[in-house]
């Protein structure tokens, strides 16, 4: 260790985010005091972000296997077999903290990171989805965040050349001090050409490829593992800057290098950069690595070993090549005008040895770095919850005018059109997008086959807040239902679990419950979770966000041309509601938008019914019996019907009658799972009825399409009779008026 470096003490360790216990544990493991560089390695790799210290014991509960799974959790991304020799590779990542500090670059580098996770697997990215959460859009601060985040995603994704085809944006005050920016990426690769982040073959050369290293984002990993406070400012020097152009070159160079067969393994230098790659890759392969930092391409002078190892400069990869084929690697990267420098070798013995100008600055068993402690911390159900759940939404009187209430709902930013967002994203590059943003799920074709993929993210923080287990299960169901409504069979899940500080028992309880809920739903729907991400410490000055698991689902269409969209396709079609009548105003958008209240109990969730409803929808679409399918989500059936009327190319009205029984506002605005609105041409009615009889689900005809009004009747009452133009106006302006 060089004399200039600070002395390693327990205090230093604490400043770097390690606890005293963890520090002692390191000393015990090494049998000596760590050097400054070594403590840096541990602080990054034992950070919550890298090591999942608080979450690991729960994540094991998620189902991770299935007939299609080619790669489960543990690699850069998961992979599923979609037939005809193709595999889909996908993963979701959060970049919440960086996006709060610097919205534009934070969101942009979030996109860059998830793209690299996909193409390190050898897959070409074909789609991005962005799942965003903000505070009240009327607040100028929020507007600043939205504009920054959306333009950051737009800039990086568009310049790189991957279409953004879906996502969601939801708003709640709890996100004001801690917005969520989750980005999912989907890629395609030949099933037998998947690459992994392994350092196999003792003696194989280790290449550093891509951008030069600067002091960007040092301790980003530890930053993502701390809550915000008035000192957030001080963490600002860690801002990373993205370069989508270099990323595009890196993509082409990596795929080209992989195709030569000279590449053994490759990993993206994400959080904790070089430190992470040089320890994780050998750890996965039972090998070690010798690295000479002096060879690392850098753009700043006087960088210490510590800084070189922990820098989170973007657009960099660590690549292990076949010994003797170094030249092919160099040539390929040179063609794309990128650095490819041999900085070390794979060795036996399981040690990571870091040298600077020949002098050893760190020597640690890679296992020690990957064996971070796993905590089983206390959990308690928040005391306040009972009271919230006990709230009876019916204590509020019915809306005087249902048409007006519906307009209010359509104009609520969470439900209103997000076109302002996605028209800033390229949605088509690659010529795969068959269904653009604006329907439930996006549909992409797989060129060279008849197949297609449907993708969607979902997650309702209010539901999860009131009932973490059921709310999280419902998130899985809704994402899968959206995919089924496009006609695709859900194949697998990636999840991004956004929560507050796990060191608070109430938060950890929410987390554990949510994971169980996700596990239950995934088991019932036979959906393996093949990858994901945990983002803890989403709080500012003690105010935690709503617990927000964001669920990304990928589904398969055997015949891409047989997909459905959410909007009515013409007049004179019969309209049916599939699924039960179990809905609730508890935690509903209606309760929030109209009564500014968060409380009540969620509707029941019958996972078997959910499975059958989705199967029935897919069967009907596959048989070409329906012209539209749209699931009922926020705002209940009234909003679902309105969206089917106004979100297509042309307006198509409809006139429906719903069963009496409960109070009207529950019936039309109540939210519940397992419900889908479909439209059927008269010629197909009999075949459709036969199919529904077979599928043994509750369903009923509720009306027919036509005209330029949305009419909803309850018994003799004509509850809603609204001009579509007015509804569309409310829906179009609801969000945009705050940002445009």
């Amino acid at each position, binding site marked *: 260790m060089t004399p200039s470096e600070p002395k390693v003490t327990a205090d230093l360790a604490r400043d770097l985010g390690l606890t005293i216990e963890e520090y002692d544990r390191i000393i015990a493991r090494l049998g000596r005091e760590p050097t400054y560089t070594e403590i840096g390695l541990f602080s990054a790799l034992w950070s919550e972000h890298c090591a999942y210290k608080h979450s690991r014991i729960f994540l094991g509960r998620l189902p991770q296997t299935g007939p299609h799974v080619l790669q489960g959790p543990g690699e850069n991304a998961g992979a599923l077999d979609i037939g005809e020799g193709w595999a889909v590779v996908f993963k979701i990542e959060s970049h919440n903290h960086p996006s709060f500090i610097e919205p534009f670059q934070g969101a942009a580098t979030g996109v860059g990171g998830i793209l690299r996770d996909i193409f390190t697997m050898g897959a070409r990215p074909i789609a991005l989805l962005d799942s965003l959460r903000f505070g009240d859009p009327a607040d100028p601060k929020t507007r600043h965040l939205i504009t920054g985040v959306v*333009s950051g995603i*737009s*800039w990086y994704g*568009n*310049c*790189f*050349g991957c279409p953004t085809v879906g996502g969601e944006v939801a708003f709640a005050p709890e996100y004001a001090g801690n917005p969520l920016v989750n980005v999912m990426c989907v890629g395609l690769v030949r099933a037998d050409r998947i690459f992994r982040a392994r350092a196999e073959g003792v003696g194989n050369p280790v290449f550093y490829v891509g951008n030069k290293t600067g002091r960007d984002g040092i301790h980003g990993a530890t930053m993502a593992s701390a809550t915000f406070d008035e000192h957030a400012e001080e963490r600002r020097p860690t801002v990373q800057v993205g*370069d*989508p*152009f*270099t990323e*595009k*070159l890196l993509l082409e160079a990596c795929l080209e290098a992989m195709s030569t067969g000279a590449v053994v393994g490759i990993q993206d230098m994400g959080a904790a950069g070089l430190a992470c790659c040089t320890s994780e890759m050998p750890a996965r392969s039972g090998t070690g690595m010798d690295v000479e930092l002096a060879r690392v391409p850098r753009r700043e002078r006087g960088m210490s070993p510590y800084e070189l190892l922990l820098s989170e400069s973007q657009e960099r990869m660590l690549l292990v090549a076949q010994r003797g084929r170094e030249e092919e690697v160099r040539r390929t990267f040179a063609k*794309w*005008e990128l650095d490819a420098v041999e900085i070390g070798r794979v060795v036996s013995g399981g040690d990571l040895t870091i040298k600077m100008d020949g002098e050893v600055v760190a020597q640690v068993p890679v296992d020690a770095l990957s064996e971070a402690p796993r905590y089983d911390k206390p959990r308690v159900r928040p005391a306040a919850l009972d009271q919230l759940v006990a709230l009876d939404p019916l204590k509020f009187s019915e809306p005087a005018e249902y048409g007006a209430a519906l307009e209010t709902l359509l104009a609520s930013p969470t439900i209103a059109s997000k076109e302002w967002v*996605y*028209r*800033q*994203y*390229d*949605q*088509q*590059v*690659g*010529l795969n*997008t*068959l269904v653009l943003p604006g329907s439930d799920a996006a549909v992409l*074709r797989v*060129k060279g086959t008849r197949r297609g993929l449907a993708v969607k993210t979902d997650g309702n923080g209010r539901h999860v807040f009131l009932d973490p287990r059921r709310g999280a299960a419902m998130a899985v169901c809704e994402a899968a239902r959206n995919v089924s409504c496009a006609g695709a069979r859900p194949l697998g899940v990636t999840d991004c679990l956004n929560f507050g500080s796990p060191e608070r028992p109430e938060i950890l309880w929410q987390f554990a419950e949510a994971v169980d809920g996700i596990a239950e739903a995934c088991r019932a729907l036979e959906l393996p979770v093949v990858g994901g991400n945990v983002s803890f410490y989403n709080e500012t000055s003690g105010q935690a966000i709503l617990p927000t698991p964001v669920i990304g689902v990928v589904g398969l269409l055997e015949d*891409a*041309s047989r997909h459905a969209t959410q909007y009515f396709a013409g007049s004179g079609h019969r309209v049916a509601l599939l699924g039960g009548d179990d809905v609730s105003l508890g935690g509903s958008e209606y309760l929030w938008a109209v009564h500014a209240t968060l409380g009540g109990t969620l509707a029941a969730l019958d996972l078997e019914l959910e499975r059958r409803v989705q199967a029935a929808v897919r069967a009907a679409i596959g048989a070409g019996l329906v012209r539209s399918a749209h699931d009922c989500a926020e705002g209940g059936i009234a909003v679902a019907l309105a969206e089917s009327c106004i979100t297509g190319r042309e307006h198509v009205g409809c006139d429906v009658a719903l069963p009496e029984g409960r109070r009207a506002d529950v019936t039309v605005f109540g939210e519940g799972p397992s419900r889908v609105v479909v439209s059927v041409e008269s010629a197909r009615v009999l075949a459709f009825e036969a199919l529904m009889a077979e599928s043994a689900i509750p369903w009923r005809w509720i009306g027919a399409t036509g005209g330029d009004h949305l009419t909803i009747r309850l018994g003799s009452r004509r509850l809603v009779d609204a001009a579509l133009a007015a509804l569309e106006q409310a829906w179009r302006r609801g969000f945009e008026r705050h940002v445009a």
Partner: protein
Amino acid sequence: MRFGVVVFPGTWSDCDFHYVISEVLHQPVKYVWHRDRSLGEFDCLVLPGGFAYGDYLRAGAVAGRSPVVESVREFTAGGGLVLGSCNGFQILCEAGVLPGALMRNECLQYRCQSTHLRVENVDTPFTRGLRPGQVLTMPISHGEGKYHADPETLKVLKQQNRVVFRYATPDGRLTREANPNGSLDNIAGIVNEEGTVLGMMPHPERAAETAMGGTDGLLLFKSLLGSLVEDGTFLKR
């Protein structure tokens, strides 16, 4: 008809054009790497969309000064056809092959949306198959597509009838609302004096299959193929 699709570092519509030309039109097509100098084997070059060299400084600025552009000049001088779409149009303007400049969208945002184009000039190899005033539907996807030219240049463009496409309403009216980026005179595409180099912001390759939502983009290619005479030269009306 032999097509060449020019690839700069950062180009991303190259594969899409290649796909449409080979899979939809069944025409021979090859990629042209930005360092290549020999273009003799091609009848038509495509400069596709993307962010060549990241579009840093100005969209198309760096690409517009790269080696292949010199070859493109020679290629056009020899009567070769060039279609520059999106970034390709920006590059042709930056290179001075086409007049004017493409500036940041008036809305100061990137725009990816469907647009309607009124055909203004059917006297080019790219549009001979079309009717004057015909309205085509094609998507745009750009942040810097606001066409600008000084008054003299604009006058010349009009006199020589070199404006090929204008953003319009579905029924062909030129309104402000129909103009997605604030382009001067709703200009979406122009040609050089000979009519052999077409630059346009919209993406014809994204409107070449029913599955992708429309086939109006194909009409440009069909015109091209139709205007090819046996000996490889082009009809001049």
